[in-house]
């Protein structure tokens, strides 16, 4: 119980998000209508992705200072999990865009940023794949991971604030906190964010354990 209470919490929060997210009342807004419920699924994906990519960055820095191969395993598996969440974020965002903006994809700084994120981490995996030696792969991909994450922050945090954007919360568009006048959505949104982040971390720890077992088997052969 001491060590896995947060896993139960994650499951409970995500379950609550799904039930309450579909059943509780939401503010009636033009254009958005019921699609506003996607807020509980689309936005937490990005929160989760950034958290898990930050874990990946943290372990890359740790690898460079300590040269412990365990950190490299965590960094790479966290990047994998982060990619999964990012992909889900793009899919949920794309469906939402179809119903509100009328197109699956529009050219927009925020959307381009999302696409670039996926490209950067795909490049990271290709870099990992093209290095054979374990220590060398860990070191060089850690350097690229740190470099890429910083450029990503520039892309995602600074550029959208300078450009016009269709996306809520940017370029003069109000974020969703303006719509949620009576705070009913907050009661679902905050638990949703916490729940999805915890679920992402849980998935990451499982992936790390699988990877460690794989290496153990390889060592014993």
């Amino acid at each position, binding site marked *: 119980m001491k060590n896995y209470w947060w896993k139960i919490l994650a499951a409970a929060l995500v379950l609550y998000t799904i039930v309450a997210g579909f059943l509780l009342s939401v503010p009636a807004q033009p254009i958005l209508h019921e699609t506003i419920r996607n807020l509980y699924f689309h936005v937490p994906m990005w929160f989760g992705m950034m958290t898990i990519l930050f874990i990946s960055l943290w372990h890359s820095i740790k690898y460079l200072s300590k040269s412990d191969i365990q950190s490299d395993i965590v960094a790479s598996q966290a990047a994998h999990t982060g990619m999964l969440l990012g992909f889900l974020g793009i899919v949920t965002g794309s469906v939402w865009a179809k119903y509100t903006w009328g197109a699956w994809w529009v050219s927009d700084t925020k959307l381009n940023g999302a696409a670039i994120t996926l490209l950067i981490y795909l490049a990271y995996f290709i870099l990992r794949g093209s290095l054979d030696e374990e220590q060398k792969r860990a070191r060089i991909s850690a350097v*690229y991971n740190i*470099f890429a994450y910083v450029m990503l922050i520039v892309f995602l945090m600074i550029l959208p604030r300078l450009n016009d954007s269709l996306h809520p919360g940017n370029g003069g568009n109000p974020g969703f906190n303006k719509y949620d006048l009576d705070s009913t959505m907050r009661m679902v949104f905050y638990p949703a964010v916490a729940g999805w982040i915890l679920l992402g971390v849980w998935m990451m720890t499982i992936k790390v354990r699988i990877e460690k077992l794989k290496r153990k088997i390889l060592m014993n052969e």
Partner: protein
Amino acid sequence: MRNKYALGGIMLYVVSTVFVSYLSFRQIINVPTWNALFWIILLFASINGVAKSFIGENRGRLLYLYTLVSPQAVIMSKIIYNSLLLLLISGLCLFVYSLFIGNLVQDMPLFLLTLLLGSFGFSSLLTMVSAIASKTSNNFTLMAILSFPIMMPLLMVLLKLSKNAIDGLENWDLNYLLVLMFINVIIIALSYLLFRYLWRD
């Protein structure tokens, strides 16, 4: 660079790319097309020019360098050298491009400033990526794959600034200039900090 032909080669690369664009476009009067084509030519020329700084470098020579000086000195000198190289390339590119395809720029000082900051940014980023890519086996492919996504923020700011310069807006957009300098400083600081983990094998 100890190799005169490499420099000549990259110059010829720029000239012939511009000439090919001239043959297919003749004159360009559309501003976004002019801007995009110019930066695409410059982007590819920069990648080709800077890729050589680590890839294809003799291992013995690198080892010799590392016994003499600190890794920070190596990366900084490579970045400075590549910045000068890219300044030369971008100057040549602008000249040939204006000659064949036409010059639409109305605010030349801003355009040159953008070009200068862009050359520094490109050179520091590509030098670092070239150092990473040189450690792998298929390094030229990887150079492009690794550099394109992380160059995007830089490229977006550059495109926007040079678009402003072409349109000749009354006021300079200081926000974008500041962001561009900020990106340059970050890239150089990261290269300075991270390069020492790259070179030891």
